[in-house]
């Protein structure tokens, strides 16, 4: 019996053609994946900006794919450290300015200097705020570019102000006014001010304006010893903790309150004032969509003590020293830092870029919230960039919690932080 082999042969030819096509096409669709790590993937409105960046970049760069890599704010350094020890860190990662030099010292960060040289060197770097850029330099190399640099300000509920007989157009300008307003705003089920006491780095940003505003500081000018034993440091420390312990203008459970909890209290009208950063209006809006945040909430400079000073949220992105694709990682990194991308971050998340052409753009200057934040930039102060900072900061967190809960008197709590700071610095 003669078998018809034609269909079989056709099938074989078709299969061979498909295999050939796949083999030929494969290199064309092979993509380098760049892991883009940040905790903002889980935060609205930030995630919208990130998704937009990812979509735009991936569409314009078929050979490279930006992929989402989630971290958590509380343990982002721990995750990056572990991943770096295993030489498997995300290609691009996001931090505050605090751990950058530690990571550089440990060899976890890619030296960006050669890439920057190729882009034009000094001319390229001139696009950024020079003082912000200094944080990225370590031992003659550049390990990052500054991202958002945002002074902290006072955010308050104007409706609550009116209810308490306060003029929303005249926010508290001094510490005495701030305390007076906080007392007037405190009533049944609502408190005048929300402050942080949880064990997280967000505390420093909200606490430092009081420490520095009183004329106090963490370290002596030569950064060799603790300066927490001064009368000024105690004044600032006491003002902060006594808002809760003495004046009762802060909700209970203060040492359980982190940045997000306090913003939630503001969003749900449990508190009337908080010290916060530019992304806060968007976050508060996301927490309570029913509130018209731009109508209800107003911003003002942090009330002034002896010195006009504020702290800042200052974040940076780095490229891992262990990336397998440094060129592609740089391409993604550079795209994140370009003007359009940074402007998008302002429009979506409300943050102020360190890029001068974005910060000085008409859009930013015309925004009612951005105006307040920008005006505070000259008064920004950062924590000391000494290697012992994590221990010093931990000692201060311990002191703040001890002061807030009455484990120790403010004097004893701050003395404990002073002694721990000197121990960390090796002072005998």
């Amino acid at each position, binding site marked *: 019996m003669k078998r018809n082999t034609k269909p079989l042969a056709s099938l074989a030819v078709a299969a061979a053609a498909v295999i050939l096509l796949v083999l030929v096409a494969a290199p064309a669709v092979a993509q380098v994946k760049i892991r883009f790590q940040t905790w903002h993937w889980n935060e609205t409105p930030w995630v919208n900006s990130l998704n937009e960046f990812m979509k735009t970049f991936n569409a314009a760069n078929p050979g490279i794919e930006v992929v989402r890599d989630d971290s958590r704010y509380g343990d982002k350094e721990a995750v990056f450290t572990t991943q770096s020890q295993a030489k498997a860190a995300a290609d691009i990662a996001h931090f505050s300015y605090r751990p950058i030099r530690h990571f550089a010292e440990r060899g976890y960060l890619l030296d960006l200097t050669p890439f920057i040289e190729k882009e034009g060197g000094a001319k390229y770097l001139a696009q950024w705020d020079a003082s912000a850029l200094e944080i990225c330099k370590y031992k003659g190399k550049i390990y990052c570019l500054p991202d958002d640099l945002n002074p902290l300000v006072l955010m308050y509920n104007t409706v609550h102000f009116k209810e308490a007989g306060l003029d929303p157009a005249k926010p508290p300008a001094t510490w005495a006014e701030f305390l007076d307003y906080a007392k007037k705003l405190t009533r049944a089920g609502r408190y005048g001010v929300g402050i942080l006491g949880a064990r997280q780095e967000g505390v420093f940003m909200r606490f430092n304006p009081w420490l520095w505003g009183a004329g106090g500081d963490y370290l002596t000018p030569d950064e060799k010893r603790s300066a927490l034993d001064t009368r000024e440091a105690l004044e600032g420390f006491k003002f902060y903790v006594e808002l809760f312990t003495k004046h009762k203008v802060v909700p209970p459970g203060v*040492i359980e309150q982190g940045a997000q909890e306090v913003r939630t209290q503001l969003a749900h009208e449990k508190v009337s004032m908080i010290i916060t950063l530019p992304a806060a209006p968007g976050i508060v809006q996301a927490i309570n969509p029913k509130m018209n945040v731009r109508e209800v909430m107003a911003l003002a400079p942090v009330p002034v003590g002896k010195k006009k000073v504020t702290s800042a949220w200052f974040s940076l992105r780095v490229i891992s020293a262990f990336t397998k694709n440094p060129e592609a990682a740089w391409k993604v990194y550079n795209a994140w830092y370009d003007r359009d991308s940074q402007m998008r971050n302002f429009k979506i998340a409300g943050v102020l870029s360190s890029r001068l052409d974005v910060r000085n753009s008409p859009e930013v200057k015309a925004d009612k919230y951005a105006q307040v934040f920008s005006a505070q930039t000259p008064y920004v102060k950062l924590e000391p960039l000494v290697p012992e900072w994590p221990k010093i900061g931990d000692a201060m967190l311990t002191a703040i919690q001890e002061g807030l809960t009455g484990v120790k008197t403010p004097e004893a709590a701050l003395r404990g932080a002073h002694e721990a700071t000197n121990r960390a610095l090796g002072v005998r």
Partner: protein
Amino acid sequence: MRAGRTWHDRHLGYLFVLPASLMLAAVLIFPAVITLKLSVTPEGGSGWHLTLIHYRKALRDPVLIQTFKNTFAFVALSLLGHFLLGLGLALALNQALPGQTFFRLLALIPWTIPDVVAGIIFRWLLNPIHGALNPLIRLVFPRFPAEFQWLSSPALAFPSVIVANIWRGYPLVMVMLLAGLMAIPRELYEAAAVDGAGWVKRFLHVTLPGLRTIILVALALDMVWEFRRFALVLTMTGGGPGTLTEVLSTLVYKTYFQFFTFEYASAMAILMSAVLFVLSLPYILLVGRER
């Protein structure tokens, strides 16, 4: 029969345990050796220049010594709670009651909940503003403060964490004791009853002796688990207020990942492991003797 076994028969077992041994070496022994080496390396150093400086520092570190005390108190009170609650529930669930299986499953639920989740549950439960506990107490005692602070109270933070840990961890002890109770012959109770023993005497002279070995094993295992308890404490208090609820595992984590002093944190971890090993010796000896 042993004489008849071939070389192949005698050594085949080694082949079967090889994958598990390799896995153990990769995930346990290798990191342990690295940690040990790190603990005797100068800060920021590398290579084979070894030092005991971190151990000397650790033995004089007041924070570490206080944290050891906290950890011992945490473990001892958790064990006591697990034992009392576990034994009580095991006795209750050993009775022939309607819905016995359902109640046994219900009592096991806390064991299925991860530490992090349990920590977050309790943190919200105890929150003075949004928490569920204060309103519940006020249903019974209307004059109880509406915004009572649990985790922010220096006096109540540590007990609150221990209560949460007792709730989360009692099922392990309960299940083991329940298995032990079910293995005690009924005839012993019947004979004791015939001799006129009341329930207290039956418990003291039949139940407890019958459970002795299981109690020892359960508490020894539980002690090892509780000594390493980490996520529950971290999510509930982060070690605060101040350092009142700091335990060894959270301190090691902080020292390693927040202070970036890998070497000192490794020395702490080695000391912690050494203490844990000493505390586990009764269990190890018991298991060895049983074999």
